[in-house]
């Protein structure tokens, strides 16, 4: 039994039996995942399990060897370049290594999607960029280059760029890995704030258990190439799936024990 309970909701992203093989290495072996509208889904799992690979399938950057990836009900694995582009208009992405354009200033980085995708005049774009940088607590960074900023600031610029066009879905690949506690809290605060304001659906890949649980509606563990149940944070921590239990115990110690064990103790 892979999924302990089927989640029932209007899905914006649905992965059905996605398989991906690199050479001899079978990374994804039938991944099923459903992301509901307006919610936050967190994908957890050990390093190198293929979390970023899942994200790249959702973004249409990789094609699965088998299975379907449906975004707003449209299968993007069969989509033409033009359809894919249309789907991506609603995406915002914060890459694992941020992927800022390193030969452009921060201002130009955030302005790029606005310049390329809207017909707004330069003054309007400047106002919007200032607004975004302000929202991300980055005053005075506009004229700097990415290499001149700290890791935390780069992530915030990446978030500003991802949110520039009011996306419907935002993907975060390890938004806080490599940051200290204060800086990751800052990122979470900004995430919480912007999601409340803009109402986007979020898909987050993270190691930051248990902190990330507070922000999530669903948690999905990727292990052995499949999603080991996609559950609410409470259910996840109480799950009886041995892999999930293992994960919960190693990352956060035993907080809740399962109902069966509790019954046995009484």
């Amino acid at each position, binding site marked *: 039994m892979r999924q302990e309970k089927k989640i029932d909701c209007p899905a914006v992203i649905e992965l059905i039996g996605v398989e991906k093989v690199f050479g001899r290495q079978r990374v994804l072996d039938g991944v099923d995942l459903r992301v509901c509208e307006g919610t936050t889904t967190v994908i957890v799992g050990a390093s190198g399990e293929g979390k970023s690979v899942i994200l*790249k399938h959702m*973004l*249409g*950057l990789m094609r699965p060897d088998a299975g379907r990836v449906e975004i707003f009900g449209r299968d993007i694995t069969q989509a033409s370049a033009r359809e894919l*582009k*249309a789907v*991506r*208009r609603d*995406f915002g*992405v914060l*890459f694992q*290594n941020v*992927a*800022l*354009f*390193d*030969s452009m200033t921060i201002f130009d980085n955030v302005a*790029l*999607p606005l310049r*390329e*995708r809207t017909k707004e005049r330069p003054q309007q774009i400047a106002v919007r960029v200032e607004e975004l940088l302000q929202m991300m607590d980055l005053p005075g960074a506009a004229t700097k280059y990415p290499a001149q900023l700290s890791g935390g600031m780069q992530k915030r610029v990446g978030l500003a760029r991802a949110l520039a*066009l009011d996306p419907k879905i935002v993907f975060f690949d390890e938004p806080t890995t490599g940051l200290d506690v204060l800086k990751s809290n800052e990122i979470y605060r900004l995430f919480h704030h912007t999601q409340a304001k803009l109402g986007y659906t979020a898909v987050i890949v993270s190691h930051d258990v248990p902190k990330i649980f507070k922000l999530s509606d669903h948690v999905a563990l990727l292990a052995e190439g499949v999603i080991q149940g996609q559950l609410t944070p409470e259910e996840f921590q109480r799950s009886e799936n041995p892999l999930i239990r293992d994960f919960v115990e190693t990352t956060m110690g035993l907080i809740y024990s399962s109902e069966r064990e509790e019954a046995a103790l009484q």
Partner: protein
Amino acid sequence: MVLLFEKLGDYTLYYLEQAGRMGLFLCQCLWRVVTPPYRIFPVVRQLNFIGARSIFVIFFTGGFTGMVLALQGYYTLRKFGSEGLLGSAVALSLIRELGPVTAALMVIGRAGSAMTAEIGIMRNSEQIDALECMAVDPWRYLIVPKFIAAVISMPLLTAIFDVVGIFGGYLVGSLMLGVNGGTYFQGMYQSVHWVDVEMGLVKSLVFGLLIVWISTAKGYFLHWERSGGFGAEGVSRATTSSVVLASVTVLIWDYLLSAIML
């Protein structure tokens, strides 16, 4: 033995695949060059980089090529007592052959390598993926301006190379070797025809396209490189191989075009 065939097949498949990719890449780029939206400013920037900033190098190499041609040509022509033909000899070799080829090699070294490295680094650090995810067409945004600029710049640079070379030849011929200046230019005037200029022009256009095609595709497909397109070393390998491939291709096409147009 089976292993050998397996390897051979593997190589063949890889190179076929790569050739196919490069071909599709060229079609994609050319399609985007001719379809709107057209953007002027990025093209101007690339014209500055590929064209304007190459002028100094072209000036220098053109001058010295013309000078050495005059020197060597004079030595040869004097054996036949026809120093008067120096002007035509220098001009024809430059316009038909040395101008387009040397200018192309200079542009490969100066701009081609830079294009491969720039695009390769963007591929490596997921900046191209980021563009795609923003629904910005990376071909249109990154590569099309380079294509247009290279195809415009190459003939102009070649023309500069030819003119400077001819004057370099004149300097050496008339001031150092004592060939009559009037004879130098008169001979040239009589022997250079439109077909010669046309050949130079066609060559430079084709070379411009070949250079920008190879250097941008090598960077763009960095992640498919057989030797592993990872990290700084991957970029440096791709840059080296793009310079080598572009130079060899230019020389091969130079022969082919000469053979066709003669």
